[in-house]
């Protein structure tokens, strides 16, 4: 069903949701940047922005510095246990590309041996799509078949129009805003730039693409902005904080570009050069069967050297055409 509504009633609705759920939605910081944040009062919510917020939904479902376990080995008792937390019921308002990212994370954490904590968090999370009304400067999601306004696969979708907001609902299991007017609505055709993925089929081969890899490895500053801001990057490291008798083990985000990522004891490194590392990253994002780039453009937004995924795809396209 499609409904016409206005911003005030949406805010009142979010306010009422805040009473029974933890609501996560885009929020405008004082400097104008948009971040997904936990909403305390509904007037913080910002739905009128282009592109994606700076941070990603993985901040909330796959958090950095998560305590995995605590140990207390003093005396005879030897306790090693994981902290048990009852997951909160949460609603997250997010862009369609980020929803695709969450679906990819679902697949990743559920395959082989499932991550139980992730499963619990995910079962208590309701996704609400915020359809795009304009295209952001770095967006290229249509390349990967993501629509800025979702056509089918949503339970609730909010779209800004010239006259107010459209709310599309498919069995959401939530109470809806009070002032709603059923309307017929066809979303306007919105597409981002579509890049040719065919050019990047052999991008993981750094010997054949020496020129591109020279450019990338020369420019990359190893800041890891691209991996930390990638909504589908899931590599992590495990570190212990404490001493022999008492302490905790935490999970930290890691990056396949870090120099010690594959390093083994005695200093062996099966992936010895920077080009090996970049080849892994590009293969994971663009080539592998479950390739995980969704075209949100955050890596392009953050990269100080201008080598996000979009730039790299454009580079391969440019090379192909020459």
């Amino acid at each position, binding site marked *: 069903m499609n409904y016409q509504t206005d911003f005030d009633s949406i805010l009142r609705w979010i306010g009422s949701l805040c009473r029974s759920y933890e609501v996560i939605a885009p929020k405008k910081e004082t400097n104008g940047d948009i971040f997904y944040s936990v909403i305390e009062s509904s007037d913080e919510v910002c739905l009128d922005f282009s592109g994606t917020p700076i941070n990603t939904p993985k901040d909330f479902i796959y958090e950095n510095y998560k305590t995995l376990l605590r140990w207390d080995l003093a005396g005879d008792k030897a306790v090693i246990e994981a902290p048990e937390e009852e997951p909160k019921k949460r609603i997250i308002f997010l862009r369609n590309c980020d929803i695709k990212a969450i679906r990819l994370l679902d697949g990743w954490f559920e395959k082989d041996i499932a991550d139980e904590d992730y499963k619990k968090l995910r079962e208590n999370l309701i996704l609400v799509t915020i359809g795009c009304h304009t295209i952001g400067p770095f967006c290229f999601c249509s390349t990967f078949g993501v629509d800025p306004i979702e056509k089918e696969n949503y339970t609730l979708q909010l779209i800004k129009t010239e006259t107010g907001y459209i709310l599309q609902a498919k069995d959401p299991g939530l109470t809806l805003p009070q002032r709603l007017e059923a309307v017929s609505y066809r979303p306007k055709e919105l597409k981002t730039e579509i890049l040719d993925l065919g050019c990047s089929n052999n991008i993981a081969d750094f010997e054949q693409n020496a020129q591109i890899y020279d450019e990338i490895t020369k420019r990359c500053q190893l800041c890891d902005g691209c991996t930390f801001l990638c909504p589908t990057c899931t590599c992590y490291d495990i570190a212990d904080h404490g001493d022999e008798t008492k302490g905790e*083990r935490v999970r930290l985000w890691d990056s396949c570009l870090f120099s010690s990522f594959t390093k083994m004891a005695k200093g*062996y490194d099966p992936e*010895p050069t920077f080009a090996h590392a970049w080849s892994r990253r590009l293969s994971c994002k663009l080539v*592998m069967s479950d390739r995980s780039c969704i075209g949100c453009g955050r890596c392009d937004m953050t990269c100080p050297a201008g080598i996000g995924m979009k730039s790299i795809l454009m580079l391969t396209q440019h090379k192909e055409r020459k």
Partner: protein
Amino acid sequence: MNRQKIIPAVIKQIEHPGTYVKIFTLLPKEPVFFVPGQFLMVSVFPEGEAAFTPCSCIKEDGSFEIAVNLVGRLTSTLHRMKTGDTVGIRGGYGNGFSIKKAINSSGIVIIAGGIGMAPLRFFIQELLQYDKRPPLTIIYSANKASKFLFLQDFERWQQQENLDIFLAALEVDTQEWKGHIGRSTDMIEKLKKIDENASFFVCGPPPMFPHVLEKLKQFPVNEKNIFFTLERNMRCGIGKCGHCYMGDIRLCVDGPVLSVSDIKKYHLAVFRETEPFMSRYRK
């Protein structure tokens, strides 16, 4: 059974047979389950976790052994630990050696290099449980005679029928050395009656792999029946953390035991002459 849960395990006994190797007998507080070739994640607080392969079957009291080579930060802390100290274990993870495949083959050849004997000793122990098993050949090499592990086991195994043992040391630095002098590849040449249904299980340092494979190709072998145990730095053991990637596979769930045909299928860079050292920064 939750295989992700860390179980406290007490160090029951420590043997120190070689200069750099200690064998720890661990007694977990809850039962664990693993097959030969699978690995366990052993937590040494507060150094973190590392993957070790059990080198013995689970004994009646629930204890088992791991062989630990002194190579880095975690293993040096582990080497300093004493009987009665507690570590954490979880697992077993990964694909182990296929006992069914070995038993149904026409002959089993086990090729171990150095510390690589550890997982294969467990495998041999399991194979010897079977009354009807194909002929078993064990080739075990190390660069020094003093580095051989489990020699008392070999003396016992020598009594068994249908079992040949070739021990090869490159350098003899002990008085009582009774084995051959040379490399494992020299011993492979001595193999007899190898047909394409024979199965091979190799574990050792990666630079040994290309030479072993080259020698094995002299025989009419099937690449599907040659298994190598590969290694990578593993952090989570459950295929989520990404550290043990090799090409498109994750070694902790798709390995660590892989057949040569699988290694070729996934285009893995396994058969390299030398294992590269870290030189990644800005290169």
